[in-house]
């Protein structure tokens, strides 16, 4: 353990801590763009510079480990002046696109520009221009908004182990791209979207689906595999009711905010027009030909009729009465063991508990199972 002083406050911390981490433990704000707590330090953006007694020039706090007796100042007139210049430099090559940028309201760059009051730019000059050419259906990459912070590169490598992207070219021409700018070999986990501090990476599905202020966030659990990642559903009011418009995961969840392609991008089934909305009762026989369910060459269960031609809509009362009376009839005629229930690993504990109770206590059989066996 070492003891250091930051802005006059003393703290005792382990040796391998960085000055930035120590300041954050003390709730002292230091602005950052490239730093991400789950990724290795980069020291690229220079916003986190601090003054350390005995060191003649400002140093980046994200890459500087603490040492015994260190005295740190995080906010001096000189530091704030330098930070403002850094902001001006970054923004001199950034489109003034906040009006329609998806990231507006949740953009670190925008926040810092606001904080430092940077609008007119005395450093305006040549700008990088890129045509958007990503063919992928998940992630929008707008390289003009990229500040080369390397968070996406690090997430892709350190967290995901994919290394789909890295820095290409040098100097002003630097950009984040695939090897030789050839095909993107990507798992589309969207970790890059999650860590991007600007609007350079956004999800295509949630483009123009609503500003942050219109969105209600609900914490829940991913519906796909058994990992049980904690997710946050972003819900927006729309004319037809409320709609889930985006999925994210918070950094302080047990899954550290990381998700996979299904968890992050696979939510559009929720308000899909195909959803069943009314109870349905069969009107055609189950015989393949008569019902229209015919055996296509490579599609044994496909139907040339729409499924809705096989059924008619019913009220809940009618459908439930029908279910109850048929089950009762079959139980009386053939015994409880002639009935079975298949419960669902997609449903909640409570639903599964109730359904097995229903099959056992109401129907009177132990013929209950679910896909755990498959």
């Amino acid at each position: 353990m070492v003891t250091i002083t930051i802005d006059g406050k003393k703290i005792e911390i382990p040796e391998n801590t960085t000055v930035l981490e120590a300041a954050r433990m003390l709730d002292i704000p230091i602005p950052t763009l490239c730093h991400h707590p789950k990724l290795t330090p980069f020291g690229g953006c220079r916003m986190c510079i601090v003054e350390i007694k005995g060191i003649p020039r400002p140093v980046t706090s994200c890459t500087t480990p603490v040492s015994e007796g260190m005295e740190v100042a995080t906010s001096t007139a000189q530091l704030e002046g330098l930070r403002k210049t850094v902001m001006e430099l970054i923004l001199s090559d950034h489109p003034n696109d906040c009006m329609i940028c998806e990231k507006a309201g949740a953009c670190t760059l925008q926040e810092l520009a606001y904080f430092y009051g940077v609008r007119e730019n005395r450093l305006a000059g040549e700008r990088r221009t890129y045509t958007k050419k990503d063919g992928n259906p998940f992630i929008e990459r707008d390289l003009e908004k990229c500040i080369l912070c390397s968070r996406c590169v690090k997430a892709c490598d350190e967290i995901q182990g994919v290394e789909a992207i890295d820095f290409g070219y040098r100097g002003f021409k630097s950009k984040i791209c695939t090897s030789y700018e050839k095909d993107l070999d990507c798992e589309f986990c969207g970790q890059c979207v999650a860590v991007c501090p600007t609007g350079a990476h956004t999800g295509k599905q949630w483009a123009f689906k609503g500003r942050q202020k219109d969105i209600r966030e609900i914490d829940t659990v991913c519906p796909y595999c058994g990992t049980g990642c904690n997710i946050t559903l972003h819900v927006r009011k729309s004319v037809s009711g409320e709609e889930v418009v985006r999925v994210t995961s918070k950094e302080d969840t047990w899954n550290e905010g990381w998700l996979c392609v299904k968890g992050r991008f696979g939510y559009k089934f929720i308000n899909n027009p195909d959803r069943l909305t009314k109870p349905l009762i069969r009107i055609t026989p189950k015989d393949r030909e008569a019902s229209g369910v015919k055996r296509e060459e490579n599609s044994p269960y496909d139907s040339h009729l729409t499924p809705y031609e096989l059924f008619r809509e019913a009220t809940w009362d009618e459908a439930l009465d029908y279910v109850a009376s048929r089950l009762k009839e079959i139980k009386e005629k053939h015994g409880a063991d002639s009935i079975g229930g298949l419960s669902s690993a997609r449903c909640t504990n409570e639903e599964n508990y109730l359904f097995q109770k229903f099959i056992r206590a109401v129907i009177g059989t132990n013929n209950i199972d679910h896909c755990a066996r498959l």
Partner: protein
Amino acid sequence: MTNSIKEIEGMEVIFIIGSNTKETHPVIANRMIKAYRKGTKIIVADPRRVPMVKFAELFLNLRPGTDVALLNGLAHVILKEGIYNKEFIDEKTEGFNEWKASVEKFTPEYVEEITGVPSGDIIKAARLYGGSRKAGIFYTMGITQHTCGTDNVNAIANLALLTGNIGRESTGINPLRGQNNVQGSSDAGALPNVYPGYQRVDVPEIQNKFEEAWGVELSPKQGLKSTEMVPAALKGKIKALYVIGENPLVTDPNLNHTFEAFKNLEFLVVQDIFMTDTAQLADVILPAACFAEKDGTFTNTERKVQRIRKAVNPPGEAKNDTTIIMEVSKRLGYPMDYESSEEVLEEFGRVWPALQGITYKRIETQGIPWPCPTKDHPGTEYLYKGGFPRGKVHFTGVNFLPPAEITDKDYPFVLTTGRNLFQYHAGSMTRRVAPIEAHAGEAYVEINPADGERLNIKDGDIVKVLSRRGEIKIKARITNRVSKGIIFIPMHYREAAANVLTSDEALDRHVKTPEYKVSAVRIEK
């Protein structure tokens, strides 16, 4: 899982067998990669060159269905080299000596012959796993979907017992569960032989306990397993099925057979969120709410009970499953009056003490892993701390038996099935997500380049794959992911359903899980 997911970071050795973790449990793979960056050694045993191989110290490319031989071979080497955990065996296990004799014949050379894994690699893997006292085994369906699935699991357990790699932090046996709440639905007793909490239906005292709790007489007879219900429906013994949120007409083995069985039912109720293939054969379809439209809990693969919350209303007249079940129950003369889903969880906790300490309030921000018997119990991150519930654990000798279907002249390829990264299971959800469908919307069969060349099949060609059960047409993907003689078809695509080819007769001898991982097939161009 006996461990929690977080504990992966602390493991010295991770042994992944029969799990394509990077594609089927991507965020658990992230945790493994995090461990790998800190120096953890990873062993991958799989018939396919799965993406985790990139991070593996050792890749054991075994033939499908030969896991028992490989696992026994590892045990053989660990015994021979004397790196087993004698203290643990003496203190916590029984049957060691008898079992020891059963792995005697599994020399690395003999195992190489069966599995195709070089004997040198078997020795290296045994030293790596056996030499560590902080190792975890991870498996999924590559282990269980075999006629010898139970044997495979026993062989895994033996390996953990032999090395004492269980019952401590970052040390254990970790089956990764494939569905959001497959752990929870098993816990809740959606199984034919046990009530909630794995309490057997055919033990009179337990039956009495539940009769008292539920106020009705209960059947003392074990029920039919899902893989027994389908043939029973075909024979007319099962007349009615009530199916919630499952789609056996894509996921069951031998789909032609499954279709006939479902068609033969007198009455089929399907309660789901989409018009699935199974729903199309229903007499009544009841529209249900999806996860985002209801309150409740899911239990993840590490036994953690987590809260799910209602974010939006169900579409149209759709109702949540709880309401529907209560309505039907009421009409059959057994009113279930629960005010909220939490009341149901409370009742669940009363009949199964492992959940008794969990309330919605306690899991408001963070889930709690069971067992959690009291309201002030913190939950259990890893199982078997301080011993096993039954006292000493028995080594169970398992012999190697080949898969039910062996390749022959007519069906020379081994078909293995599974999931890919993008689609999910029967596809009723992911196939309705436009970007996923745009990126991975087409069924394919993975074929080794050497086989492709021999059969004159090029990448992208449409081929016919035939088994004794049926045939499908599907696009060929030429790739080194599969070895010569083996093909892989993902299960998600109803229009080229892998399960038309799989067998409903090759079932695990004990728990009747279908052998989805080995079918003999032929490819025709």
